[in-house]
């Protein structure tokens, strides 16, 4: 079993035929200690110092790069053609405490009957897709600025 403490590289430079995938669910990227098995059967023991990203290399051999890949999951993709609608959709879904992903002209949210009910009630244009869902996360520097506001940033 191979021990992994941090990513080796953000991306693999090798051709896809020399990459071995380890597919995991999104929640795994939030955990520090866990175990996984790559497509070729190699076992990994994760005890992470820092966050992994989908597509990053976790282990290298002479023959291959081992790449961790986030699995796709069903999401609702809501079209937000105007800024006002985007703000409204973000506010209403945020009020339900569901994480969202912002992409150009769309807002993604995980599939759930409560969300489905709201989308249908509000008649928002949407479609159901299977994608790698990467919800919005406050970058550490922004989070720190919010926690310790300077005189300039204080409301």
């Amino acid at each position: 079993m191979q021990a992994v403490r941090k990513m080796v590289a953000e991306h693999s430079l090798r051709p896809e035929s020399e990459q071995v995938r380890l597919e995991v669910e999104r929640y795994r990227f939030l955990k520090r200690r866990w175990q996984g098995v790559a497509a070729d059967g190699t076992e990994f023991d994760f005890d992470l110092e820092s966050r992994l990203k989908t597509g990053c290399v976790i282990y290298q051999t002479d023959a291959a790069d081992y790449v961790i890949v986030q699995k796709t999951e069903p999401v609702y993709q809501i079209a937000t053609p105007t800024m006002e609608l985007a703000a409204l959709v973000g506010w209403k879904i945020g009020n339900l405490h569901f994480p969202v992903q912002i992409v150009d002209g769309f807002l993604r949210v995980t599939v759930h009957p409560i969300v489905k009910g709201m989308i249908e009630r509000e008649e928002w244009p949407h479609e159901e897709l299977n994608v790698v869902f990467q919800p919005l996360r406050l970058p550490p520097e922004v989070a720190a600025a919010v926690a310790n506001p300077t005189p300039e940033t204080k409301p």
Partner: protein
Amino acid sequence: MMRFCSVPTFIAIILFSCCGVTQAHPGHFHPEEEIDEFDERSYRDSVTHPFVSFDHLAVMLGVGALAFTMGIRPGSAIGVTFVGALGLGLESGMAISVPLVALSVILSGLLLLNQSRLAKVAPWCLVAAMGFWQGCSHGAGFDTLGLCLGTAAGLTPGALLAFALRSFQPRRMRLAVIR
């Protein structure tokens, strides 16, 4: 336990502790919180919360002082009971009403004052209930391990406070509580 409260009172306490919060906004659903173990702010907040929240601090110091009065082994065990019940309450995800949180603060004081007059099992039950209510009151967003570690660390100042009260107060003023 029955020396401390009658059967109807005991049943009333059990029912009171099981009641949920009023759902004034039906349909306002909250999904299960995704704990991000890399979010250090969330973990740090969980560890420091017991020291910055008045109700949590009061109950924690009370239980710490109670543990001191009980001696090393029972005191340690009651501390573990409190922290364990707190973790269980937090993990259960149950929502409790605010009066129960207030009741846990009042109980911690009453328990300290009346410990010697209670049946042996009473402090254990009450401390477990107080811990459970405190845990439930936090809901999602707190890291269980962080909150338990912070609370466990906070029991020591309570015990030290009790030790200081016993050691430094004039003999005539000695509180009946801290023997």
